[in-house]
């Protein structure tokens, strides 16, 4: 038991270290730092410009700081989804095809499940800085109304942590599917992240979605995560569909759904790992 725990934590640490090396070692530190902040800021600005265009065209729904705050914060937090999902899921393709090391990690005592989590951790840390920089930019330049003294920091950190656990678990599920696919993992990750962008209330308010998409949004843990993060930052209930639910209830739903997601990720990972070993795909090179 103790030996297993020690192996898992060591695997997590080593994989995080490896991920960090890969993420940060390709350029001088200052280029890396600028890249890590400028890139997400630029993508946020695309949305802000779109918002301004719609607001100036006189669309009442899009006007006012309330909607800009909703969209800006939702987008900032959604950076975690894209980056962590990609960081975890892409590991299989990268290690198997590019570095040809997946088989060596696989046959070592390291647990692949924790290895995948660890590889996503580096992306997570980089994204933390990007999210903070994006929010700071929003407050200082775009005048997004956030009262820093009113932010519930302990709950924000806790909720962010739970949400990230769920995203990483989702990444493991995608990584598991990638084990039995050739070059589709990129499209898979992009596709899933795109779907969540639509049904998590990050940019698009859930109430404007068709009924069946609203139902999907309401079983998506990310919906509760993003809404709770917004609430703990602004102190306001921002998603109309969830306005009747208290913070505590949202927190309970988020925690429960994340635990279910983590459990599912373990089951699904085991299934696809077994399938990959059965078919001999762990060291398959497709040259994609």
């Amino acid at each position, binding site marked *: 038991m103790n030996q297993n725990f020690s192996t898992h934590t*060591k695997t997590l640490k080593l994989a995080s270290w490896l991920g960090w090396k890969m993420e940060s070692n390709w350029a001088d530190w200052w280029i890396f730092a600028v890249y890590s902040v400028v890139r997400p800021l630029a993508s946020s600005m695309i949305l802000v410009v779109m918002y301004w265009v719609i607001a100036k065209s006189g669309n009442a729904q899009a006007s006012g700081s309330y909607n800009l705050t909703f969209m800006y914060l939702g987008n900032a937090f959604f950076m975690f989804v894209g980056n962590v999902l990609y960081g975890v899921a892409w590991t299989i393709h990268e290690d198997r095809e590019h*570095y040809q090391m997946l088989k060596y990690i696989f046959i070592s*005592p390291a647990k692949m499940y924790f290895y995948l989590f660890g590889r996503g951790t580096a992306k997570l840390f980089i994204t933390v800085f990007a999210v903070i920089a994006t929010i700071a930019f929003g407050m200082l330049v775009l005048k997004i109304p956030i009262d820093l003294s009113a932010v519930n920091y302990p709950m924000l950190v806790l909720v962010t942590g739970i949400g990230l656990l769920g995203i990483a678990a989702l990444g493991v599920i995608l990584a598991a599917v990638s084990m039995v696919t050739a070059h589709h993992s990129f499209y898979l990750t992009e596709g899933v992240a795109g779907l969540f962008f639509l049904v998590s209330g990050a940019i698009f308010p859930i109430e404007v979605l068709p009924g069946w998409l609203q139902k999907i949004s309401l079983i998506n843990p990310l919906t509760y995560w993003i809404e709770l993060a917004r609430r703990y930052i602004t102190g306001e209930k921002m998603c109309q569909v969830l306005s009747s639910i208290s913070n505590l209830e949202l927190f309970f739903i988020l925690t429960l759904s994340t635990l279910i997601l983590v459990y599912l990720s373990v089951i699904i990972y085991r299934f696809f790992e077994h399938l990959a070993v059965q078919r001999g795909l762990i060291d398959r090179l497709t040259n994609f």
Partner: protein
Amino acid sequence: MNHAIETLKLNRTFKIKKAKDKPAPSFITALEEVNLTINKGELFGLLGPNGAGKTTLIKILCTLLLPTSGTALVDGVDVVKNPALVRRRINMVSGGEHSGYGILNVRENLWMFSQFYGVPKKIAYERIDTLLKLFGLDEFAKTRIGKLSTGMRQKMNVIRGFVSDPEILFFDEPTLGLDVQIAREVRKYIANWVKNNSQKTVLLTTHYMAEADELCDRIAIIDHGKVIACDSPSNLKKLLRKETIVHIEINLTDENFEHFSQLPGVKKFALEHKHNIGRTELKFILENDSAISQVTQALSSNGSKIISLSKTDPSLEDVFVALVGRSLESEN
């Protein structure tokens, strides 16, 4: 006593995707009823042409692939039932590939793997430094892997195999693509490692006869997924002690030599075209010396120009020809 490796009626088939014009998916048999017992402290070789099933067997023993049926035990542990326990006891190195995290330097890469295997940090650093020195890579310890030559990268991968000090080490064509000098160094270290550690075992696959002959205590010759012989190199060669082995080089030709195996006194016959030097090499296993003249006459009447003829002691290559009826080199 637990054997290092034991396989019992091990089978592995691969399903080939159904072609449009075929009614059902077809299967390829990679391993068929493989029974092997490898003792602790042995340096055991699997010898066979490409596609013989060597890598499939190693992949099963390393828990990378499930067998279709049969049992495989590594250090007494079933690879299917308890792969995690197997992984604590083994390591593997494959040749002929360009693997490695290019962004890490040599020392970082080796350290990371030592930690995956739970080697205490102090021991890991000492072991890494010793191995880097032994393999002449100490100067490149802080060089990024992406900047290493293929040979150096392969040396580093061999060190990665030893860094966890496994009970059983699998080498899949470890010297493939290496230059002669580096291959010699790698072979020497593998041989010494087993010699100096009586409980350590190496299973090595190769299609280089000389490598198998030089290194291995015992060899299994594998072809089309079946083990067709298993013994020490000297005992395998003794299988041909009564026969006459003749190697003949002629000018490169596309002539059909199939009828040569029907000549009186010819037990087995194989040919290998050496396009790079413009010659064809014929290997004959003959019943006795008197058959040599039959062969040379047949060659003359065939219009072939004999460049050299040598009567040799049996080699593993000849054993392969005698057992399989074709040359291993020509297969590769």
